[in-house]
């Protein structure tokens, strides 16, 4: 009995010790996740992961989120190189774009150093989701779009190299950061635990009319939104009142970004604003600040826009049930729009 007791103690120490180490290191956790030893917490959608409301569990999430090989363009345009800067709305492989060479930066994820091919036209498209407009384009736009955007080899390369050199090591990368979330991710995302989480969420919603603080349910209980989108008290919400001068500043900064990249050698810079899920699915939730339209129609805007909001707004079904992003249908529309732009540029006569 004594030996069994000791054995159990050592087993518990070893297991909890391993969990502790893995929880402390995000890098190690990513390695384990990539091997499939722990389930992907977003496999049913990020909003489901936050809320655990069974109604919004998107069982065919992967199918709804993944582009097919048939979505790849049939024609690649040899005289155009396409550069895109986006976020979690544009995570697709560059092979889906129709440029001769296609480069993409997932904002904040990495910095890419490129050498512009002067024998081809270089077009840059910057995609911005509505809820980040104020955050990214108002005051810190240079740190975000210049320092973390494309670094042109020979001109701005040193800066990119400095950033890369400053990256922390594998073990100490964000060591100990957000440990509670990571323990939950590591231990409590297996299906049996999801059942328990769903029960809690069900009780909270049906008894107390509460959802998890990160998610807000629509009035008709058909859609789920991020808290930062749907809560009008939050400054990034489309229902938060923004001043005309704030819009002016953003337009000025957009023009400044365009100037920056044109000076670096790009032929043109386009912006494309993706509307928030809440403004597509429940636009009348509160008074909408019409931020995208106010920017796109601003008289001082010199930067060309790929306007997609009218089409997107007529398709609430292009957004996931259990996720704040658009589905593969939205992604296809984005690709169609951008690849049409590539085609248009390929047909333009050379200016020099």
């Amino acid at each position, binding site marked *: 009995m004594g030996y069994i007791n000791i054995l159990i103690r050592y087993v518990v120490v070893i297991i*909890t010790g391993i969990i502790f180490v893995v929880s402390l290191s995000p890098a190690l956790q990513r390695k384990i996740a990539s091997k499939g030893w722990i389930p992907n917490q977003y496999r049913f959608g990020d909003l489901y992961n936050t809320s655990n409301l069974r109604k919004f569990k998107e069982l065919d999430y992967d199918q709804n989120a993944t582009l097919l090989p048939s979505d790849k363009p049939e024609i690649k345009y040899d005289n155009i190189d396409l550069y895109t800067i986006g976020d979690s709305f544009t995570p697709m492989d560059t092979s889906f774009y129709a440029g001769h060479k296609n480069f993409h930066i997932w904002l904040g994820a990495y910095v890419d150093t490129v050498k512009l091919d002067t024998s081809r036209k270089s077009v840059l498209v910057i995609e911005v989701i509505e809820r980040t407009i104020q955050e990214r384009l108002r005051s810190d736009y240079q740190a975000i779009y210049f320092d973390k955007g494309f670094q042109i080899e020979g001109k701005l390369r040193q800066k990119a190299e400095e950033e890369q050199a400053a990256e922390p090591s594998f073990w100490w990368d964000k060591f100990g950061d957000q440990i509670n979330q990571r*323990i939950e991710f590591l231990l409590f995302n297996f299906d049996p635990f999801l059942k328990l989480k769903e029960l809690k969420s069900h009780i909270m919603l049906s008894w*107390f*009319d509460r959802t998890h603080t990160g998610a807000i349910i629509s009035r008709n209980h058909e859609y789920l939104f991020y808290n930062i989108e749907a809560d009008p008290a939050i400054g990034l919400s489309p229902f938060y009142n923004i001043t005309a001068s704030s819009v002016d500043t953003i337009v000025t900064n957009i023009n400044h970004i365009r100037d920056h990249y044109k000076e670096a050698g790009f032929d043109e810079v386009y912006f494309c604003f993706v509307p928030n899920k809440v403004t597509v699915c429940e636009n009348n939730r509160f008074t909408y600040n019409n931020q995208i339209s106010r920017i796109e129609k601003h008289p001082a805007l010199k930067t060309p826009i790929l306007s997609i909001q009218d089409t997107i707004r007529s398709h609430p079904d292009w957004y996931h049930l259990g996720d704040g992003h658009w589905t593969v249908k939205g992604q296809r529309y984005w690709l169609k729009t951008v690849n049409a732009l590539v085609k248009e540029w390929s047909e333009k006569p050379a200016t020099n």
Partner: protein
Amino acid sequence: MLFNSLHFLLFFIFVTTLYYSLPWKFRWVLLLAASAYFYASFIPVYLVILGVVIVIDYFAGIWIENSSGSKRLLLLILSLIANVGFLAFFKYFDFLNNNITYALQLIGQKNEMPPLREMFPSLILPIGLSFHTFQSMSYTIEVYRGNQKAEYNFGIYSLYVLFYPQLVAGPIERPQNVLWQFRERFEYDWENIRTGLTLIAWGMFKKVVIADRLALVTDAAYGDVANQGSSALLIATFFYCFQIYCDFSGYSDIAIGTARVMGFKLMTNFNAPYFAESISEFWKRWHISLSTWFRDYVYIPLGGNRRAKSRVYFNTFIVFLLSGLWHGADWKFIIWGCIHGTYLILAQIFNTHAIFRPSHAGKGGALLVRLFHIIWTFLLVALAWIFFRANSVSEAFEIITKIFTISGYDVPQIAMNTGEFIFSLGLLLLLVIKDKYFARYIPDTRMFWVLFAVVCLSCYLFGVFTSNQFIYFQF
């Protein structure tokens, strides 16, 4: 690392199991390392600040023990000044400076001294500073009094201050109660584990199910006083009484339980305080480790109640003034302390203990009379809590004015639907029953597993997990 976090759950299981797996002579080393990790997990640099306090009092204890006469007293005073100085620097400097600025403005002068946080923007108040400073001070005082031998093992002494279960919010221990336990060989004992886990589970229930649920209402109401009706503020104040009780006593239960699982016995910190029949009794039941600290190290040295009445009143008032100040560098805490001091002085002047029951000078009497005393005491305590919870003194007065404005009463608009409100009242009833009839109940093994599973499941299903820190961490 909060007690109500997965991080702590994992830490607790790992450290406790390793504790029982290690040879006895290495256990204090494990506890010291674990405690250092626990404290550093808030902000690592806190450890350096705490380390300075530990070094000062470690050497002060040894020097005091090896000295005699006036030198002994001088060393004690120096160590106390160092401790209080630390506390004053981090906690009270800006408060004092702001009040000097205000006073000088009244006479048309300017204070040239900038606020500390302006001079050192990254400076923040180390978490639980008041708790471990008081615990350190009790060590040097007890060594001076000859009640405790100086601890020569620096590691063991560090552990006395750093011991993670009670590091950031008490109970504020005495060296006689704890230091010897770090040298004790605690064998694996199921009774200790069962008792400890029972305390942890109930403490967690009080924190995440009751306190954090009630906080939804109190935070919303006290965060926007101007737009609240009388009824909403009354409900919020009523809820706050139980929120702070469940929050703090929940923390204490988890702390005591965590230590108990490893065999350590920490002092009781709460004893059903809202069943007190007088303010004096309330303070024998509420935050007992702090009340007795002030009694032993301030009230009695000032002469206690063996002096002339006027001096006794003065002593009482000083203790509660200091108690208020201990809670925070803000006039609202000072007023809160002064209110309790005033209650006690008035009770002594008018002998309110005997009102309605002249034949019973102390506790006892008919149920209705006792009930009256309990409710009356609760109302007095609740009134004082308004100052404790409000964001400022002026806001506290605004809340009191609204609560006492009968015309302001309407259908309460609180941050909770009817179902949750009724559920919350049910939780309070459960709390009252537990405190009244099962306060020290530890189930037998079979019942333990049933109750432990039910309480843990309830904590998860009905708990509010919105990263709510324990209220007393700020002190």
